[in-house]
């Protein structure tokens, strides 16, 4: 029984490792296509990448705004509850600003984008795969990696940091509304506290994270989409796998980047 479970865990682990290997190899191919391609007559499709930025951004923007505002408000309330016990209610604005920019905005944005744009990309490429459209591209002589994968990954690499900066702003406003309307902090005080507490490092740390997360979502979604095999059911499976796997990898990468930034500052 135990051995069986152990065996299954082992198999799962090997499976995950192989999966990670496929992600890396796609990353390598896409990276080479982006950096070396232009010198070999396959320039990066900038127009298409811009379209992808707009598409992914548009898909996720309403949801990201809503969630960011709510998170900002929740955070203000929660921190007020704890800071009150220390008699440090004047730190609410600082706490909201720092935890949002360094951690919550990039993380929440990435998770929402994985659910919105990542799944859409996996479904799109998966459908193209099962209806032989990817094969048709290959036969025409168009490399599916440079035509489909590179613009999508680039799009997310740009869109997720932009959305994150936007979420920073909205979440701070959410915290401010709660601070002013519920906690009776003066609007001027709150704004001044926010500005005083933030250093550029916080913002860039968050943007760096968002950049990494965007890459993860793009890679996972494209890899899942392109490895879809079978019919409509398989497309559904790729879509779900994309969301789950992206979220797991995003959180793992978050720990890693946070630790790096922490070591750098310490």
């Amino acid at each position: 029984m135990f051995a069986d479970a152990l065996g299954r865990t082992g198999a799962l682990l090997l499976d995950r490792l192989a999966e990670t290997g496929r992600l890396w190899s796609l990353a390598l191919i896409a990276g080479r296509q982006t950096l070396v391609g232009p010198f070999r007559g396959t320039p990066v499709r900038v127009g298409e990448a811009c379209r992808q930025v707009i598409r992914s951004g548009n898909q996720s923007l309403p949801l990201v705004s809503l969630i960011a505002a709510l998170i900002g408000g929740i955070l203000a309330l929660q921190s007020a509850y704890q800071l009150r016990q220390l008699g440090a209610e004047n730190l609410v604005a600082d706490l909201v600003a720092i935890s949002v920019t360094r951690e919550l905005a990039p993380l929440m944005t990435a998770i929402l984008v994985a659910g919105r744009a990542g799944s859409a990309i996996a479904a799109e490429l998966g459908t193209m795969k099962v209806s032989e459209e990817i094969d048709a591209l290959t036969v025409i002589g168009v490399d599916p990696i440079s035509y489909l994968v590179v613009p999508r990954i680039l799009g997310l690499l740009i869109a997720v940091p932009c959305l994150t900066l936007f979420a920073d702003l909205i979440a701070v406003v959410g915290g401010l509304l709660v601070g002013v309307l519920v906690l009776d902090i003066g609007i001027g005080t709150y704004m001044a506290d926010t500005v005083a507490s933030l250093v550029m490092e916080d913002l860039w740390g968050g943007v760096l994270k968002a950049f990494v997360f965007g890459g993860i979502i793009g890679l996972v979604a494209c890899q899942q989409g392109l490895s879809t095999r079978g019919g409509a059911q398989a497309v559904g499976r790729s879509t779900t796998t994309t969301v789950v796997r992206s979220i797991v990898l995003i959180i793992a990468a978050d720990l890693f980047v946070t630790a790096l930034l922490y070591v750098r500052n310490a």
Partner: protein
Amino acid sequence: MTVAAPAPRATDDLAIRVCGIHKSFGDTVVLAGVDLEVEHGETLVILGGSGSGKSTLLRCMIGLEKPDQGTVHIQGTDIFAASESRLVRLRQRLGMAFQSSALFGSMTLGQNVDLPLSEFTELPESTREIIVDIKLALVGLEGAVDRLPAQLSGGMKKRAAFARAMALDPDILFCDEPSAGLDPVTAAGLDRLLLQLKSVFGITMVVVTHELASAFAIADRLALIHKGRVLITDTPDKVRACTDPIVRQFLDREPEEIEDSHERFRQFMLDEDEPGESGDG
């Protein structure tokens, strides 16, 4: 038309040379040693039962599926050994119309046909538009430039796929069941189109089909695939005169042996606990 001499030909002289191709999916052996040669300007029609591996053979010939064994040379280039850039250049000389049409679902018909043109030519947009219109008119779809593939019937998609395959005026055209799902009049029109393309442009064609009438109408040579091998490749007249029982069965449209199918039916109905082979077919 003179029959080609049986002496071995240099690979460069041939449009396509397929040598000893084996291909299995898991335990299913689909191709078990296929050899084929296609001359420049020739139309080769591949016949065979459903599931006999015709599409797989075509996918191997164009490099979408890597065979387990064997080589494919197109215009003298070994497509499984050539460099990527060489392949890209070669592929611009090839066109393929897929069995499933494989039109790009997010693009209109016009954009579908335009894609190879905008990727590989320097032509201005106005010129490309004219070419797209010509290609679509070729298959009777002149009014559908702005339609999406999802808004087309199956037969229209087939014809659109053909138009896209023809976009760059290829040297070699691969068609997987171009006339399946077309009404007899349109199918006959497509046959005539293939014949015209051959006589006017000298295009080499490899056509997979089920329709015997159309096969005999367009073929310079016919190849019959059976059990993963080429049973016979010869001119239509020779094939028609062939006495091989399996060839006859296919050409005379005879069903499988009566006793055989009775027996299978009986087994299927009675021995339910003994699962037959029908599961993986």
